[in-house]
C-alpha cells in the first residue's frame, strides 16, 4: 500500500509540474463546450429572405408577416420577378425566396388549394433543407387548407428549440473523457518505457499491475474534474437541462471512464514509443469517436457496414446513454443495453491488458 501511495504521489507530481499539459487537459472541455455550443452551430439563423408576391392579398400578407416576425428569418424585402430571385441567389445575397402564386387567397378559399414555392440556396444541402423546413413549418401553421402539412411535433420532442447543444454536450463528454483517460494514460505509461524508467520499475519489487493502476489514478481524478466542468458549463452556460437522474448520469460516466482507462492501458502494453501511442489513440480513438459515435453524424443515416463498425466504438454507447438520461430524462431500465455493452467492453479490455502484461517479458 505504501508502495502504491508513493507511486501515485509521483504521478500527481508529473502532471502538476507539467503546467502546459495540465492547462490543456483542464481547459479542453471548456473550450470544446464553448466551441461546439456557440461557434459550431448547426442551427440556421439569420435566414435572408426575399418575397415574390404577385397576389398581395390577405393570406399572403399574413404568411409574410409570420415569417418576418420569426427570429430566424431576416426579411430583405420584396422582389418583382423570378430573374431577380435567380440573380440574388446566384450572387449569394439571399438564402431563400418565397414565391406566391397569383390569386393565392382566392384559390385557397374557392378550390381549397393554393401554391407557394420555396426556392432555397442548397449549395450547403443541410442548410437548404433546414431553411425549407422552417418555411414549411411556418406556412403550415397558417391555414389547414394550404396543402402543406408536416408533423413538426415529433421531430422537436426533447429539444423544442432545436438547440444543437443538446446533441453536442453528450458527444463532448464522450470525446473529452476518451481523450483524457485513454490517450493520456497510454502516453504516461509509454513515456516510462521510452525514458528507461520502466526497466527500473520492473526490477523493483513493484508489481507491473501496481504500476499500471497507479498510473491511472491521477487521470481518474482529472476525468472527474472535467465531468463536473462539462456538466456545470452545459447547465449554466448552454442552458442544457439535466432531465434525468444525476446519480445515474454520473454512474454511466464512471463506467465510461473505466472503459477509457482500460483502453489506454491496452494501448500502452502494445506500443513502445509515445509517438505511436499518440497516433494510435489519435487516429484509432478520436476519429471514430468524432465520426462514428453519432456525436455529429446520426448513426441511422450511415450505410449498414459503417453502422456495424460504429457498434464497436465505445463512445457510441456512452453518448446514447447520456442522451437518454440527461436530455430525455429516462431511467435505468432504458439504458440497460448501453450499460451492458459498456460493461462487457471494460471486462474484455482489462482481460486483454492483463494477458498482454503477463506475456510481455
Amino acid at each position: 500500500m505504501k508502495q502504491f501511495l508513493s507511486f501515485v504521489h509521483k504521478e500527481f507530481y508529473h502532471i502538476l509540474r507539467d503546467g502546459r499539459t495540465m492547462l490543456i487537459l483542464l481547459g479542453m472541455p471548456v473550450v470544446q463546450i464553448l466551441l461546439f455550443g456557440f461557434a459550431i452551430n448547426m442551427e440556421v439563423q439569420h435566414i435572408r429572405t426575399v418575397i415574390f408576391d404577385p397576389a398581395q392579398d390577405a393570406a399572403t400578407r399574413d404568411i409574410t408577416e409570420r415569417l418576418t416576425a420569426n427570429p430566424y428569418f431576416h426579411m430583405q424585402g420584396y422582389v418583382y420577378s423570378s430573374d431577380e430571385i435567380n440573380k440574388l441567389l446566384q450572387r449569394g445575397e439571399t438564402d431563400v425566396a418565397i414565391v406566391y402564386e397569383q390569386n393565392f387567397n382566392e384559390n385557397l378559399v374557392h378550390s381549397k388549394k393554393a401554391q407557394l414555392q420555396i426556392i432555397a440556396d442548397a449549395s450547403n444541402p443541410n442548410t437548404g433543407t433546414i431553411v425549407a423546413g422552417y418555411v414549411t413549418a411556418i406556412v403550415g401553421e397558417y391555414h389547414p387548407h394550404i396543402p402543406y402539412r408536416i408533423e413538426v411535433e415529433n421531430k422537436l420532442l426533447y429539444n423544442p428549440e432545436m438547440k444543437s447543444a443538446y446533441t453536442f454536450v453528450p458527444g463532448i463528454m464522450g470525446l473529452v473523457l476518451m481523450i483524457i483517460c485513454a490517450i493520456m494514460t497510454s502516453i504516461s505509461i509509454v513515456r516510462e518505457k521510452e525514458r528507461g524508467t520502466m526497466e527500473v520499475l520492473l526490477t523493483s519489487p513493484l508489481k507491473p499491475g501496481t504500476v499500471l493502476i497507479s498510473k491511472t489514478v491521477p487521470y481518474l481524478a482529472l476525468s472527474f474534474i472535467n465531468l463536473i466542468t462539462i456538466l456545470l458549463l452545459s447547465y449554466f452556460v448552454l442552458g442544457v437541462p439535466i432531465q434525468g437522474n444525476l446519480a445515474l448520469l454520473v454512474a454511466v460516466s464512471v463506467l465510461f471512464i473505466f472503459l477509457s482507462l482500460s483502453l489506454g492501458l491496452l494501448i500502452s502494453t502494445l506500443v513502445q514509443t509515445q509517438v505511436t501511442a499518440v497516433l494510435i489513440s489519435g487516429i484509432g480513438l478520436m476519429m471514430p469517436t468524432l465520426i462514428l459515435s453519432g456525436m455529429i453524424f446520426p448513426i441511422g443515416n450511415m450505410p449498414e457496414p459503417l453502422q456495424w463498425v460504429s457498434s464497436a466504438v465505445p463512445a457510441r454507447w456512452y453518448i446514447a446513454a447520456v442522451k437518454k438520461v440527461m436530455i430525455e430524462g429516462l431511467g435505468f431500465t432504458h439504458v440497460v443495453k448501453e450499460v451492458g455493452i459498456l460493461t462487457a467492453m471494460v471486462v474484455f479490455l482489462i482481460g486483454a491488458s492483463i494477458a498482454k502484461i503477463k506475456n510481455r517479458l
Partner: protein
Amino acid sequence: MESEIVINVSELTKKFGSFTAVDRISFDVHKGEIFGFLGANGAGKTTAMQMLCGISKPTSGKGTVAGYDILKENEKIKRNIGYMSQRFSLYEDLKVWENIRLFGGIYGLTDKEIKEKTNELLHRLRFESERNTLVKSLPLGWKQKLAFSVAVFHTPQIVFLDEPTGGVDPAMRRQFWEMIYEASDRGITVFVTTHYMDEAEYCHRVSIMVDGRIEALDVPGNLKEIHQAQSMDEVFRKLARKATRMDNG
C-alpha cells in the same frame, strides 16, 4: 576469493524464437565483488542481466541471485537488488529528495528510515543545497551519481549497473568508480556492464561475452597475460573479432 557466493548461474540460456540471445552461460559472483560484464552490442549482455534481475524468464538453465532461485523467486530477488540502467533512471521532473523518497517507498522503507537516510546521503554527496532541485537541471555527472545512490539506497545485496557511465567525461567517471568501490567496501556486490575498457581494468573480475557465450572470465591481469595483450581493450578486440553475429544493439 573464499567469500560467500551471491550470484550463481549454470547453463543459463535465453532463446527468442530460433535466435539464441544467451547461450548456456555459467559463472559465480562473490559478495562484495565488482564484476565486469563486457560484450559488444548484441552480444547478449542486457538479456543476461534481465534474467538475473528477474524480469526475463530463462529458456533453460538455472541459477540463484542473492540466494533466491531466478526461475521461481524473482519477486524476492527484486527486493534484494538495485538497478541502474544505461538510460538515465531517475525522474527528471521530480526534485532530488522526491526521487529518493519515491524509490525508498517502492522498496518498502519507512518514512523515518527514508528521512534519516536521505539526510545522510545528501550530506555524503555534499548535495544538501540541491535537495529541492529538479533532477533535470542537474549536470549529467551529478545525475548519474544520484542515480547510483538511489539504486543502493535500500542497501541491496547486489546492484546491477547497465552502462552507468555512458556519455560522462573521464573525471566524472573516475568519481563514479570511487562510489562503486565504496559500495563494494560496504559489502554490496556490483555487477556492471560497460563500453569503456579502461573501466574494465577497475573491476575485480571481468567476463567477456561474444555471440551469447562467455568467452573469457578472469581477473583483468590474467586475461591480459593469457591473451598477450597490453590492455583490456586489446583483449576485448582479440575476442570480439571472433563474433559472427550482426551488431543488432
